[in-house]
């Protein structure tokens, strides 16, 4: 029962904050709504017994990425309203309609499929010798997913270098 | 086979200019390019000098032979070697190459790098053609020479250069394509008789083909080589190419490239197709005599200095061909010597035209006059080369002329009589040219302050003058080197003349030469069922 209440509350918060993010005219506000949104998602993770991810969500997303956004917003010192100019040919309404249609379809699929054929738990991967959420994820990352992990690190390195190159005025 | 160590001298000579061209690719300063190109051209000459000294003039064998597989599937080989004849031509090519490169020092100012690379590649191609003993290899080099020459004329030439370059290229190409057909005919015939696929010309030299096939192949070869010589009706590319080529191009063209044609006749046409050659003598001689007189007369009508020299070339090469088709040792020896002489004299004359062209940028004879007053040394050099060209005794041209005319005289006196009119006509047009350019008063104010020859130009002429006098006074070293080459050809085309070098008849050398006894008609007993179809 508690879970239900928590879920609905959090869902409402997440969706509401999400709508706020994309509707607020002020960019700074938008960023702040985003932070809150992420925090709510972190709570969802806790509910879903993914404590490690929750921590990551707070640290990386809310703490790192969003702060990055804030910096950019400040660096981009806008002298005029960023949304002032509007191209007459843009198809925002069509997009909106399509988005709505897709949402309906997705909802239809979800409702329909989960009600018809509840899935059975999949056999867990090879039993890990460790217990606890963080240990298990660590185990997986450093054994089965070592190579993707390393690739991800390279990706981050590349992104870092790229960002520096792009952002620097002159090399 | 070779009498020297296994040192690949010929390859070295051939690849030195190529290495130079390769080095030039990485140089960009104009003066550095000049120095390096000159250095390699000079080096090319120096490494070819041992040929002169190391050649065994008494041995009828091919010397400095190198033989490696090339395209084994069709029997083509990297088979190179020389005899006295090719040694002289190689030396001529390397010397004239060095002179041509040196003469371009100030004449060429744009696209230096490409220019020198083309010159060096051209030289490698010429040497390659002279050393090839594999017919396919020869053909490859033969075609390789066309390309750099085409660009030399087309890029660095004068007014009408594109027309001339294309004409030169197409003319020669048509000839050589037909020649290729001839080569293939011999190749397949050889396979039919011996069962071996090979382009080895030493084997072809022992082939006795049926007369019909010989005639056709002779025609094919004739077209290829006669265009290059050039003989009378195929000569019109020459004046255009010479006139529009840059000086160095004209020099190389006159001194060496034209010799490709006569070289081809001596090395391929005559020994491979002896019977057809004998049958063709009257026709070829007729063309030669027409060429001699016609070239001289047309030269007389020219108003363009370079074109005049070019037509004199037609006349002289007619004489060379005449000596060749006398089919006597004296005639062929004279013909070969005259090729060298023509290279020296006409090459030198083109250089001379280049000298004034560089100063005045015109070749119209009427623009000049009285140059002996302003450029006395130039006039002196011009006089010597003119005299060499018209065959004054004590200079080189005379020896060649006398040998050729004597050689043809014993064959037919009337031919010789007509051919000898060339000496009168050549004197007429050359002296008229000399009078119009060197003598008289300096009428044209532009000519009043022309500088005389400078040290570099002297350096280009000095070797030519020395050679002209040397060959004129003491041609024996040259003639000695030709002995076995001439005998090799004579042994094939005539049963009258025995080889001179039967001194060391230890059996082995004698076996190298084809049997002499009996005329060729009874040698054609080899079963033949039509040549290559």
């Amino acid at each position, binding site marked *: 029962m508690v879970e239900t209440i928590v879920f609905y509350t959090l869902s409402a918060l997440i969706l509401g904050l999400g709508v706020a993010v994309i509707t607020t005219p002020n960019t700074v506000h938008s960023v702040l709504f985003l932070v809150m949104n992420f925090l709510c998602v972190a709570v969802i993770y806790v509910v879903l017994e993914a404590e490690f991810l929750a921590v*990551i969500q707070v640290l990386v*997303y809310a703490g790192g990425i969003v702060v*990055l956004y804030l910096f950019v917003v400040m660096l981009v010192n*806008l002298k005029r309203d960023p949304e002032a100019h509007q191209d007459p040919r843009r198809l925002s309404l069509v997009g909106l309609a399509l988005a709505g249609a897709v949402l309906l379809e997705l909802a239809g699929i*979800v409702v329909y499929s989960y009600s018809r054929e509840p899935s059975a738990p999949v056999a867990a991967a090879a039993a890990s010798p460790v217990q606890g959420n963080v240990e298990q*994820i660590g185990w997986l990352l450093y054994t089965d997913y070592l190579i993707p992990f390393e690739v991800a690190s390279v990706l981050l390195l590349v992104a870092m270098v790229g960002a520096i190159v792009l952002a620097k005025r002159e090399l | 086979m070779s009498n020297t160590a296994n040192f690949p001298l010929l390859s070295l000579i051939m690849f030195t200019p190529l290495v130079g061209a390769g080095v030039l690719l990485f140089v960009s300063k104009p003066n550095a390019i000049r120095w390096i190109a000159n250095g390699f051209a000079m080096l090319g000459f120096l490494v070819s000098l041992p040929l002169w000294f190391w050649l065994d003039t008494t041995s009828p064998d091919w010397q400095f032979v190198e033989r490696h597989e090339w395209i084994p599937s069709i029997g083509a080989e990297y088979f190179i070697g020389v005899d006295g004849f090719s040694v002289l031509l190689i030396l001529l090519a390397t010397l004239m190459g060095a002179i041509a490169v040196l003469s371009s020092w100030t004449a060429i100012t744009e696209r230096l790098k490409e220019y020198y690379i083309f010159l060096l590649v051209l030289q490698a191609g010429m040497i390659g053609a002279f050393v090839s003993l594999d017919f396919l290899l020869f053909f490859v080099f033969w075609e390789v020479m066309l390309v750099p020459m085409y660009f030399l004329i087309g890029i660095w030439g004068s007014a009408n250069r594109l027309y001339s370059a294309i004409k030169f290229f197409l003319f020669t190409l048509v000839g050589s394509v037909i020649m290729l057909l001839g080569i293939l005919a011999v190749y397949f015939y050889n396979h039919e008789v011996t069962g071996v696929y090979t382009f080895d010309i030493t084997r072809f030299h022992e082939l006795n083909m049926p007369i019909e096939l010989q005639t056709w192949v002779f025609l094919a070869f004739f077209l290829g080589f006669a265009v290059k010589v050039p003989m009378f009706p195929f000569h019109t590319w020459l004046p255009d190419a010479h006139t529009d080529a840059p000086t160095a191009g004209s020099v190389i063209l006159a001194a060496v490239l034209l010799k490709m044609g006569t070289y081809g006749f001596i090395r391929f046409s005559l020994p491979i197709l002896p019977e057809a050659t004998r049958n063709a003598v009257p026709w070829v001689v007729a063309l030669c005599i027409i060429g001699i007189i016609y070239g001289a007369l047309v030269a007389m009508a020219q108003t363009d200095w370079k074109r005049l020299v070019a037509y004199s070339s037609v006349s002289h090469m007619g004489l060379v061909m005449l000596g060749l088709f006398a089919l006597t040792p004296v005639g062929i020896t004279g013909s070969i010597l005259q090729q060298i002489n023509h290279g020296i004299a006409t090459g030198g004359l083109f250089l001379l035209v280049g000298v004034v062209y560089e100063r005045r940028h015109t070749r119209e004879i009427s623009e000049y006059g009285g140059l002996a007053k302003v450029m006395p040394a130039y006039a002196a050099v011009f006089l010597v080369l003119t005299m060499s060209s018209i065959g004054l005794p004590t200079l080189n041209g005379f020896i060649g002329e006398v040998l050729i005319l004597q050689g043809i005289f014993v064959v037919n006196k009337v031919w010789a009589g007509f051919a000898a009119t060339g000496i009168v006509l050549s004197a007429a047009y050359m002296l008229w040219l000399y009078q119009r350019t060197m003598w008289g008063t300096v009428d044209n104010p532009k000519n009043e302050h022309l500088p005389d020859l400078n040290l570099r130009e002297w350096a280009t002429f000095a070797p030519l003058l020395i050679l002209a006098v040397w060959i004129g006074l003491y041609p024996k070293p040259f003639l000695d080197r030709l002995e076995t080459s001439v005998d090799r050809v004579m042994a094939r085309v005539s049963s009258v003349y025995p080889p001179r070098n039967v001194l060391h008849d230890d059996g082995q050398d004698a076996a190298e030469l084809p049997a002499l006894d009996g005329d060729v008609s009874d040698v054609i007993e080899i079963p033949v069922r039509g040549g290559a179809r």
Partner: protein
Amino acid sequence: MEITPAHYALLSAALFIIGVVGVLVRRNIIIIFMSIELILNAVNINLVANARHLENLVGQVFVVFVIAVAAAEAAVGLGILLAFFRNKETVNIDEMNVMRW
């Protein structure tokens, strides 16, 4: 009433569409980037929910990678944005058409 994966899926879908709408409708490119973050979060929620439902931690591992990619994307994207802004003095996506030709 039990909370099934379907609930989470619906939540995820809704958040996803919100992100999509943000991408499609807004002209401020910073907000468009943030919308993309929303989309990624929607995906993450779905993954985590299913990981619990299927009792398999692979889903969570994937989330780690998604976060890494998101970080990279944000860094590079914002770098491009800054460079662009320096040249054009704008963050309006309708004015970003230099690549059109």
